[in-house]
């Protein structure tokens, strides 16, 4: 071993040391809470228009267009959500209402309004890792997977990102063995999440494609989820976001299912 290689080993070792020192300094629990808050709890409430383009493995396209209203009961806690669909024609005026419970032992309450029948239907709690309205997004990607459901460890970091490994506390309840989430160091938003099977196959990816600061809150404006097995993917774009509108609790009720609050939907 020449002197040069000795130095580089030392250098590498020091780099490793400093990396692990930094790792020890990072409070992973605080980081994932901050990340969850940035991704799902910006402001006290919010609205956004959203459009999804769903592309299946054969290249066939579908579209969903809707408006989301959200109100936090508390940060990193319970939330109320309304999703008003406007496109395509067969889901026009359909409304989805969710009362999300952060306690993993309490199922979310969900209702669906079918306009052609004027029917409000309470929906039983379902597997949260199934398709959200036919897209590659899971219901859980939209409402937020409770961080208490996984064990997080810091796997790595780059200049701009923390890379955390998350393992489910209840492996039987999910289809993944683990996922790697890359969190932006500055705005704390999760920007890439790769899901893996037990054998290390990366079969699913969720990414924030573009981020903008809106009313002071870093906000994902474009995101994409890819089914790496089939090649199918879904693009989602958000527009006309607003935070801290002072949305009344009454907006998140059966009233809004049957009588959409048109002033918040424009």
């Amino acid at each position, binding site marked *: 071993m020449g002197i040069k290689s000795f130095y580089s080993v030392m250098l590498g070792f020091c780099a490793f040391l400093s990396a692990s020192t930094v790792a020890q300094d990072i409070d992973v629990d605080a980081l994932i809470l901050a990340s969850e808050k940035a991704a799902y709890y910006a402001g006290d409430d919010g609205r956004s228009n959203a459009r999804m383009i*769903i592309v299946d493995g054969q290249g066939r*396209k579908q579209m969903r*267009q809707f408006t989301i209203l959200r109100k936090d009961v508390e940060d990193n806690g319970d939330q109320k959500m309304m999703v008003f669909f406007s496109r*395509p024609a067969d889901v026009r005026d359909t409304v989805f209402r969710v009362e999300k419970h952060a306690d993993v032992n309490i199922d979310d309450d969900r209702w669906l309004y079918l306009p052609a029948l*004027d029917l409000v239907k309470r929906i039983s709690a379902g*597997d949260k890792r199934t398709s959200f309205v036919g897209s590659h997004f899971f219901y859980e990607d939209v409402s937020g997977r409770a961080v208490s459901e996984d064990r997080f460890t810091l796997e790595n970091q780059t200049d701009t990102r923390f890379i955390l490994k998350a393992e489910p506390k209840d492996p039987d309840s999910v289809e993944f063995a683990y996922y790697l989430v890359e969190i932006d160091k500055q705005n704390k938003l999760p920007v890439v999440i790769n899901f893996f099977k037990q054998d290390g196959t990366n079969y699913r990816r969720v990414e924030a494609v573009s981020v903008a600061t809106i009313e002071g809150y870093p906000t994902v404006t474009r995101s994409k989820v890819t089914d790496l097995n089939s090649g199918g993917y879904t693009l989602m774009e958000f527009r006309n976001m607003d935070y801290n509108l002072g949305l009344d609790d009454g907006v998140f009720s059966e009233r809004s299912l049957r009588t959409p609050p048109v002033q918040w939907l424009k």
Partner: protein
Amino acid sequence: MFKSIAASVLLGLCLSAHGQTSDDPWADMDDWEAQETSPFSWAGFTELALGRRLKSDDVIGQNTTLQDARLQLQGDYVLSSSKLSFRGDLYYDGVKESLESQIREWYWQGNLGFLGAAGSHFDIKAGQQVLTWGTGDYLFLNDLFPKDYQSFFAGRDDDYLKAPSLSVKLSGYFEFANFDVVITPEFEPDNSINGEYFSYFSPMTGTLIADEFSVLDSNIPADPEYAIRIYGTLAGTELALYGYKGHTKLPEAADALGNPRYSDLTVTGFSAVRAMGSGIGKLEYAFYDGDDTTGADPFVPNDQSRFLVGYEQELISNLTGSVQWYTEFNHDYEALIANSLWPQYEDEERRHVVTTELRYLALQQTLTLQLFNFYSPTDNDGYLRLRGTYSPTDRWQISAGVNGFYGDETYTFYSQFKDGSNLHLAFRYFFEE
């Protein structure tokens, strides 16, 4: 002639439907902003639907149970805090061989906030509209809004089970409870099985008949219908009280000459729905208080209590199952039988119906499969509905299904429609601005 026009319109729409292709997957977002500025939006579909009897019906002598070429258009005009909505159907009904139209929605809906702070607690929906409340799946206790069983049995889309009415609905929202009051100035009965599509049992002749009967104008009530619901949530349970004052929705009563008529009816009831275990549990009760208080009048239906309990849960991913137990209790049953003109055909004192449903979403929710079975252990008859709907794009949808009626006797509720068991197929093409 009309059929061939409808077919060529449909074909033309399909040919023009080929999507625009682009290298930039985000390009499909481009036309978005322009749409949002307009207060007016519209959409619609055209549909061809066909249904055939599984075996012939000697009384009707026609094997077609459904033959629709349909156009539906809907439009909304959004005002500052209210909206105008329209949904109308124009269709050629090949079974009746006539061009039909139906305005399903044509209403103004908005908040009364412009009347002052107190007004903000109230919403109004006035005009032609479809109305639904209550907890049953395909079973109705406190929901006395008009239904169209002919469409349901023929295999038209579930939307058509509910018929529209010209009504005013006032809704009030308060801290402890909310209410709806619905006034329908002109009585709107159900579209029942009347011999147009399906034959039915006549106790008078003791056989199946298909006489297309209609109710004489003089036997149609002239007074309005009133319906009220008071509801709220208490400790996670959704509770509701209901009331209805109007008339039987089917012409079950008869006048002195034996002509069918709608008798007076008052209904009161309640319901409760809550999360139970990993599913949803529900319970509903309704008391049907008719004109025949002693049960001795054979021309007027007796009072009835209706009761339903149900449970639904997701069994495995994308597969949901539900069960309902429903019972009708006929009050003053001894008097009913003693005075009946045909006691051998009367319902049991307690008629039970058990329903089971399985609903499966497959292929990224582009395929929906539904099995729904009604079975009456007291009548020993039932009705099995199977339906599959496939829609891999936003543009079109194909659906197929079976309505199968079974049972021992010709006079029991489901069994009388055995000859109406049918297979149906529909293709629907959607369009929007």
